[in-house]
């Protein structure tokens, strides 16, 4: 088992690291009396699918919202390629966020816009491309995800799986370096779940992005993860590859994985 990358005294977080793309150090956050994260350290590996698992309410979503600076911590820092994200001013932060694509749990598509308008939204906001160029990019991204032909539909007319794929297409139009998925398979049937898993893997392979995926669907986790980290009691309890996590004998990790009932299959797949 490999523990979370420690904050060694000589660690220079201001220098981009060839292996680690996102580095979280000492992140602490509480809401009222509820301590969610407590001096949490975490590293996401560049170009890999990094999955964060943990019980409901463990703080997974809070952690990824900090990565994009959608939440501010009580203390701690997050470094992306040597940049401390919490030190950025509003203008720098806007630029910084363009490096990320966030796929929300329920897609968070704008109800009043069509699929095409949803996907075109970031391009209209952040580029000077004309309508034809934008339409071509959107068509390309939608086609890559098997959604060509849905351009004129509204989100309410789509199935859950299609909405998630549209959410991914919207996240991809600005060619982000880092893609974050917030529980991408929650509420989907097994076939749709497998399709979303394949979509995550294909996206990671095709666009060479660093993916951070939150999930507690262990079947899905074993299919897609290059690296798994578990949050428990406000900290990262364990991190490692699928094999390392399966071999982990920490009682909570062992119980969490075995309780899913897919450990054997996962081990086989791994």
């Amino acid at each position, binding site marked *: 088992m490999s523990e979370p990358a420690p904050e060694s005294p000589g660690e220079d977080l201001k220098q981009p690291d060839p292996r680690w793309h996102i580095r979280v150090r000492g992140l602490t956050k509480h809401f009222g009396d509820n301590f969610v994260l407590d001096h949490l350290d975490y590293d996401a590996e560049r170009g890999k699918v990094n999955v964060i698992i943990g019980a409901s309410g463990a703080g997974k979503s809070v952690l990824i919202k900090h990565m994009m600076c*959608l939440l501010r911590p009580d203390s701690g820092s997050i470094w992306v390629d040597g940049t401390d994200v919490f030190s950025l001013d509003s203008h720098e932060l806007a*630029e910084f966020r363009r490096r990320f694509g966030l796929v*929300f749990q329920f897609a968070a598509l704008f109800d009043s816009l069509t699929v095409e308008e949803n996907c075109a939204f970031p391009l209209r906001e952040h580029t000077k491309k004309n309508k034809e160029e934008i339409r071509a990019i959107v068509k390309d991204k939608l086609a890559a995800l098997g959604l060509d032909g849905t351009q004129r539909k509204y989100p309410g007319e789509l199935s859950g799986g299609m909405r998630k794929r549209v959410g991914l297409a919207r996240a991809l139009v600005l060619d982000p370096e880092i893609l974050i998925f917030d529980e991408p398979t929650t509420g989907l049937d097994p076939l749709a779940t497998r399709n979303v898993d394949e979509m995550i893997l294909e996206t990671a392979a095709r666009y060479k992005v660093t993916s951070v995926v939150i999930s507690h669907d262990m079947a899905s986790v074993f299919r897609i993860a290059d690296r798994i980290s578990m949050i428990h009691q406000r900290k990262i309890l364990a991190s490692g590859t699928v094999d390392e996590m399966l071999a982990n004998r920490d009682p909570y990790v062992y119980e969490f994985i075995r309780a899913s009932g897919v450990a054997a299959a996962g081990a086989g797949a791994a």
Partner: protein
Amino acid sequence: MAEAPEDETTFGHAVWIGVKDAFHPVVSFVDVLGGHVILAGRALSWLPRRPARAANYLEASDYIGFGSLPIVLLVGAFTGMVMSLQSVYAFRTFNLESYAGGVTAKALSLELSPVLTALMLAGRAGAGIATELGTMRITEQIDALESMAVNPIQYLVLPRIVAAMIVGPILSLLAFIIGMGGAYFVAVVIQNIDHGQYVANIKSILTLSDVIQGVIKSAVFGFVVILIGCYQGYHATGGGRGVGLGTTRAVVFASVSVLVLDYFLSDLLLSLMGTPK
């Protein structure tokens, strides 16, 4: 043996709890008021900054202005009519019914048009905006905006409050005009007041200052009503029930704020630009 827990039923502690509970509404009020001021400040600080997104302003103006026009005109017309009817009957006691026009015009321009327009905006546009933004908040659409490096306050709140400050006075003026039409119809056509005397009294009693005061009030009311709607929606929590509660609060807070603000604003405007004696 486990140590006994610290006794919390001391007299001092009970007094402290009592004082805290007694002042809780005050603290909550100041907290909410401060939240509104901060939201307004953050929104207005985006006004000179690009991108301007003219389409968002037009869309907000369309929703708040054109969308509210039928109900505002209906309310304006019937308010003018009933005000005229009551004035004619009241002044008839002293054979002064031709003064009904001037009194109705003064009341409509200074108070009834701005206040009733604001109340209609609170019930329709304020509630609608609270629901829309609240739904966007709980379905993470506002987070999505932020994740796409679009400031949600600049994108969602600023166009709505600016639009309300512009279309609020226009709606109020239209309510005043149609209200005066209704008042004229009731007084001159139904109650047989002399047209010449009726119009002459309006001209002698109503001043430009009255209309301007009404316009200023409408701009302030529009700003307050839509700001409250935006605040309640933007800070909605707790799923569908939370959105519903936010919408209710938006209507109640906005209506009460308009009526309370009306007194202080009237006092200020009358002292600054009231009709000279």
